[in-house]
């Protein structure tokens, strides 16, 4: 037939917000987006949160979350789906277009076996008989490298892991042989070592079935591996469209250029000094004395330097922070601050000890009282530790706001009136107000868009130079680690598997786990995924 599968013309999406106590008001989410997709092609939709990526993706199923209104034309297989009847629309959903969501764990019905959910659309649309559909599902499970493809379908969603569930959802989307699949951040919620398997499985499946896809993500390095072309969105508008190669090698727009170079902060490693500010000695810790999460962890942090603690979820990173702060007294081992042992429990520590060790969290919005202004939030440690009040306190808050590059105009705002990045900056200012010797940063950039995260990292480095504060930087993102750290501790199942100065840790030969971790970080270059997968196959084949 024609060589166009999908054509979106001048898409506009509006929504209605109902702020409590105010009149409902209309807001525009997406404006003037047009795109064409040929059969079998993969288009990456990329942009930061709020760019309208998911909304555009779901519009190909004529679906608007929370009553969003779509206008413009969406041509699929030669007809404008904006004008078809509800019955025809149901026939399109699950037959011509299918959807893979970010959180497979939430997107499967907990009380139905996986197989019945995977083949549901296929049977509903009478594409195959039940036994044929089951046979196809088992084939797909195998093609997506799921363990026990014959029997995994008889399990319930809670009985398989997150990465497996994401692949089962991909099988569910492929099962009815659709023309188009919308992948909505399918690997974002996964650990980096799991992400690469799912990514490879998705890519292979797309190639073998010849299905077209819209691949939505905020991670340019990921989208570069699976797409043929890329559409960059920002604030609901199109910024740039081109082939993958053109976008990553010769971006035209300034915003795209910024995205491409997001992870390049130069940071020279500093040599360790004689006396560490913090020293952990043989820390072993468990929850309720039963589940041991940390085993014999020994590490130190030097004044004005950064120790990056990396590992996957469940590796014990955050537990280590809880031990240092005294929230979880260890079963064994000591925490030394300036060569003086800290009392294991928070309640036994002095005000001065508390002041010198501050913390910044992943979720800035829940780490602040929503009913307090920025002045109160940042002023609180000034009052508590130094007894500074009144005009002097306000002057200090303004100084701190200048330091975090925000300025006086924000002083009377509430957290709800700040963006995600600004909230995190206020949290940084609050911890700085205590004039600490060391700050624990627990995944502080994980919830932020790449460009905003970059700004926060730069700020943290500048503050380190100015104030000489040490950081214990907990993260699962290895690109961040390279940008900020002086020494690195790699954690796996509660143990340190590799620890030392940055250059040493990141220089081969690696131990197996660090190798796996480092080689799994997506790189912004064509063919990276194939290369890694090929290497691993060769290694497991014994070359």
């Amino acid at each position: 037939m024609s060589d166009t599968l999908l054509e979106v013309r001048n898409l506009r999406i509006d929504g209605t917000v109902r702020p409590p106590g105010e009149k409902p008001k209309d807001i525009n989410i997406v404006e003037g987006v047009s795109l064409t997709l040929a059969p079998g092609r993969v288009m990456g939709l990329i942009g930061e949160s709020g760019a309208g990526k998911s909304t555009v993706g779901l519009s190909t199923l004529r679906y608007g979350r929370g009553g969003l209104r779509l206008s413009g034309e969406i041509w699929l297989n030669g007809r404008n789906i904006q004008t078809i009847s509800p019955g025809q629309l149901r026939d399109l959903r699950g037959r011509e277009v299918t959807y893979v969501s970010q959180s497979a764990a939430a997107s499967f019905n907990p009380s139905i076996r996986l197989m019945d959910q995977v083949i549901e659309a296929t049977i509903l649309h009478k594409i195959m008989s039940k036994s044929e559909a089951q046979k196809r599902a088992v084939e797909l499970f195998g093609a997506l490298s799921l363990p026990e493809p014959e029997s995994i379908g008889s399990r319930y969603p809670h009985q398989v892991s997150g990465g497996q569930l994401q692949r089962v959802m991909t099988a569910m989307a492929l099962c009815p042989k659709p023309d188009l699949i919308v992948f909505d951040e399918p690997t974002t919620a996964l650990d980096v070592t799991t992400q690469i398997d799912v990514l490879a499985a998705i890519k292979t499946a797309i190639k073998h079935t010849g299905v077209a896809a819209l691949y939505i993500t905020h991670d340019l390095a990921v989208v570069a591996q699976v797409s043929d072309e890329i559409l960059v969105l920002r604030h609901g508008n199109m910024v740039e469209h081109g082939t993958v190669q053109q976008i990553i090698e010769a971006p035209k727009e300034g915003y795209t250029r910024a995205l491409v170079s997001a992870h390049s902060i130069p940071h020279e490693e500093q040599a360790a000094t004689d006396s560490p500010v913090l020293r952990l000695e043989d820390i072993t810790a468990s929850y309720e004395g039963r589940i041991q999460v940390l085993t014999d962890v020994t590490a130190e942090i030097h004044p004005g330097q950064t120790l990056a603690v990396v590992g996957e979820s469940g590796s014990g990173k955050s537990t280590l922070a809880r031990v240092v702060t005294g929230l979880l007294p260890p079963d064994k081992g000591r925490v030394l601050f300036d060569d003086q042992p800290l009392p294991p429990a928070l309640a036994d520590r002095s005000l001065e000890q508390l002041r010198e060790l501050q913390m910044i969290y992943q979720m800035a919005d829940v780490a602040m009282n929503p009913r307090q202004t920025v002045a109160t939030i940042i002023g609180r440690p000034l009052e508590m530790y130094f007894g500074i009040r009144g005009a002097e306190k306000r002057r200090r808050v303004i100084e701190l706001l200048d330091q975090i590059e925000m300025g006086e105009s924000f002083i009377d705002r509430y957290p709800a009136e700040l963006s995600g990045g600004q909230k995190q900056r206020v949290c940084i200012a609050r911890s700085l107000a205590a004039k600490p010797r060391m700050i624990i940063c627990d995944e502080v950039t994980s919830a932020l868009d790449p460009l905003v995260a970059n700004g926060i990292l730069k700020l943290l480095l500048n503050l380190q130079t100015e104030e000489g504060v040490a950081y214990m930087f907990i993260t699962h993102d290895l690109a961040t680690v390279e940008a900020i750290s002086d020494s690195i501790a790699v954690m796996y199942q509660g143990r340190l598997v590799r620890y030392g100065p940055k250059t040493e840790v990141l220089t081969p030969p690696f131990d197996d786990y660090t190798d796996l971790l480092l080689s799994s970080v997506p790189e912004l270059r064509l063919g990276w995924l194939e290369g890694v997968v090929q290497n691993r196959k060769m290694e497991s084949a014994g070359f």
Partner: protein
Amino acid sequence: MILMAAQRIALGCLLLVAASILIFAGTQILPGDVAQSILGRSATPESLASLREELGLNKPAVQRYLDWLLAFLSGDLGTALSNGKDIGESVAGRLGNTLFLAGWAAALSVPLAIFLGLLSVRYQDRTPDRMISGLSLASISLPEFFIGYLLIYFLAVKLQWFPSVATLNADMPLGEKLRTIALPVMVLTMVVLAHMMRMTRAAILNVMQSAYIETAELKGLTPFNVIRKHAFPNAIAPIVNVVMINLAYLVVGVVVVEVIFVYPGMGQYMVDHVSKRDVPVVQACGTIFAAVYIGLNLVADLVSIISNPRLRHPK
């Protein structure tokens, strides 16, 4: 899972024993005693003392409780003081009648409530939803005696479809029995319908927020099938809970309806004997009611354990 279920059942038994102790204690702290109420005005100190001796009222309370409990467990409910009849026999017939009425009311109201609940989710905030909510709220707001007399006036007196007095005989054919209890069944249905319907609606709407509902919609399922296949099975636990509470009400709380329709059920039997201060009867009825109530709630707990796939199929 089996451990959890066993725990619930053990807890239910414990609760039942506690309830029987409370009932026993309650009858003990009433002013006056059985001997006094039997003898009435003809009581002399001597006759009171000899009657108390005869009835075993002089034994310590704990002893009397244990005696009564053991007898109760072996099926001996004791003898009514007011007429000397065996309580077990009287209760058997009455309880049968009550369960017959409650059973038919449940058979009508539970499916209807769940269907209406599904319907109002399907047409949420639209005319059918508003009508269902409005009508069921009206029926729950009117006192049951009022609805009862209203139905008697229209359906029994004016239209003469059903008898106004629901006197049941054991030898009636089933059709005749159903015609006889039609009016009380209707009243009871209207009383319990709204609560069950609204809880069904709320429980399903809660589930409708889940991401897997979106998945189902994007597979092209019709709205009603999305609710039936994907939302309802995950809302079973709260729905069963409210259904069981209402079933318990149908058994133990229908005194007013029984009085209006002169229906020979447990409620009337108990109220009669409360006014006669017939302690053994009140005690027996109270314990049976407590057993029904605890039993039905136990069933609700067990269903919610069984309906949870995480408990049914552990990792």
